[in-house]
């Protein structure tokens, strides 16, 4: 036993543990990727077509962009919210409450911090891919390709990681699945609308603009749009910093509250 004791103490956020949790997600994903991909790609496409053609017939240019270009880039952020926060909320709740998956994982050499981080990284990576779909659809309808588009998957993955952590945090706080309604209607839906996706924020009343500025989705919309049409220097560094800060805070909150739920 002396030999075993001499082993270095296992650290935090170990690669082996993160990999183990992600392999589980990956293998599971292989059995439900069709439905997941369907909802993550068809949803934004419908928004894009409905707003693009519906509103697009009323307004041709918004904030200096063609409306289809404006909406096509904006919906990237919506997709990030949908495919980041929602799978995290429902997935976490189901795995905790019904499948007892976390009991099994935490009995293996994996800590809550690693569990939460790995799940959010996986959802973030997936979101990076899904986030590009509306942009590709918009290209079919006339959005011109640009080099900056290559950065969109990375921005979507970063924001997706943040939203996934936020979703896990919501699930960790939820006593029942019905309490998701409060978060969804009270927070996520307003955020989704007041983010400069479908209409620019600067035409809204002052208070709504202020609220919009603390909405991570707004910063995601702005930075994606600028990546496609040209960066604005310091302004975009500000947006990026906000997204990073949001991801970090949501990450720590998710871990803190999952620990409270899983370790008694």
């Amino acid at each position, binding site marked *: 036993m002396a030999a075993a004791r001499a082993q270095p103490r296992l650290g935090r956020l170990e690669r082996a543990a993160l990999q183990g949790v992600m*392999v*589980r997600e990956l293998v599971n994903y292989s*059995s439900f990727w069709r439905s997941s991909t369907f909802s993550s790609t068809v949803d934004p496409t419908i928004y894009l077509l409905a707003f693009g053609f519906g509103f697009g017939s009323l307004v041709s240019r918004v904030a200096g962009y063609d409306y289809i270009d404006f909406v096509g880039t904006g919906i990237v952020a919506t997709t990030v919210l949908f495919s980041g926060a929602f799978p995290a909320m429902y997935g976490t709740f189901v795995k905790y409450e019904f*499948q*007892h998956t976390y*009991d099994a994982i935490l009995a293996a050499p994996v800590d809550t911090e690693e569990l939460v981080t790995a799940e959010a990284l996986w959802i973030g990576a997936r979101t990076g891919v899904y986030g590009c779909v509306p942009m590709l659809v918009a290209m079919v309808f006339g959005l011109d390709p640009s080099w900056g588009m290559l950065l969109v998957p990375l921005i979507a993955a970063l924001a997706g990681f943040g939203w996934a952590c936020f979703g896990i945090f919501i699930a960790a706080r939820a006593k029942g699945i019905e309490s998701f309604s409060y978060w969804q209607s009270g927070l996520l839906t307003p955020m989704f609308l007041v983010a400069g996706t479908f209409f620019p924020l600067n035409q809204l009343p002052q208070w709504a603009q202020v609220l919009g500025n603390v909405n991570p989705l707004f910063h995601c919309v702005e930075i994606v749009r600028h990546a496609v049409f040209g960066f604005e220097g310091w302004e975009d560094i500000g947006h990026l910093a906000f997204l990073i800060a949001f991801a970090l805070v949501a990450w720590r909150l998710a871990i803190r509250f999952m620990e409270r739920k899983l*370790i008694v």
Partner: protein
Amino acid sequence: MSSAIKLTGFVKRFGSLTAVDGLDLDVPFGQCVGLLGPNGAGKSTTMKALTAQVIGDEGELEVLGYRLPEDSKQARASMGVVPQLDNLDVSLTVEQNLLVFAHLYRVPAAERKAAIERALGIANLAHRRKDKVDKLSGGMRRRLLIVRALLHEPRLVLLDEPTVGLDPQVRQELWALIDRLRSEGVSILMSTHYIEEAERLCDTVTIMSHGKAVAVGSPRALIHEHAGPEAIEVYGSPTRLAELEGVARTRGWSTRRTGTSVSVLHANGDIDLDGERRITNLEDVFVLLTGEEIS
């Protein structure tokens, strides 16, 4: 270090409820120890504390030489846990379930395939490897749940109520599997409320009641100490049985109700009662000490 698990004065409270109340527990290397107790005795809380999913309020915990909860991850890397609640991924195949846990238990890449084959062999599930878990019978699922915890060849295995809710025949299959582990020198801690399971498989048994250990020893020694070699089982009308219990109390004999009869324990040939003599068993000890019938 001579013990795979050592608990000293372990206490866990949930609000005003004290689930585990100063438990001492020792699992020597290579032995199978049973944690026997009625529902609510604190068995599951104790099991969860051994993986640091429950953090105690008082007491010392040591698993495989590591102090818990701080070094729990190291301990978990060398132990296998079979939970009471089936938490297999039901939409995955048998083989995929094992693959996922080969990763979680950090089986090196080069050994993963062999570890999965070995597990399939032990569980006798090689022919069902491609089937989804929700197509398996209850017994097969439980076998899969057990071998999933053996992929990394752990030195210690925790079994939380391994055969609860299974048919008697399936239960015997699982006993054979657990006995095989024991013969290979794996240390085992098993919680159960099936007396027969503990009697057959365990080297020593800790009987728990209300969060405390009320007796510790080999099944044979516990029976000898608390129930004596023989019992007399007396049948009769309820009034006759109540009378008999009164007489037994005044003479200092232990009794327990066994359905429609009363068993007088410590009946070592010198008691003259009309009844059937039978060998005492661990169940007598259990009921005597915990005051509770088995569910």
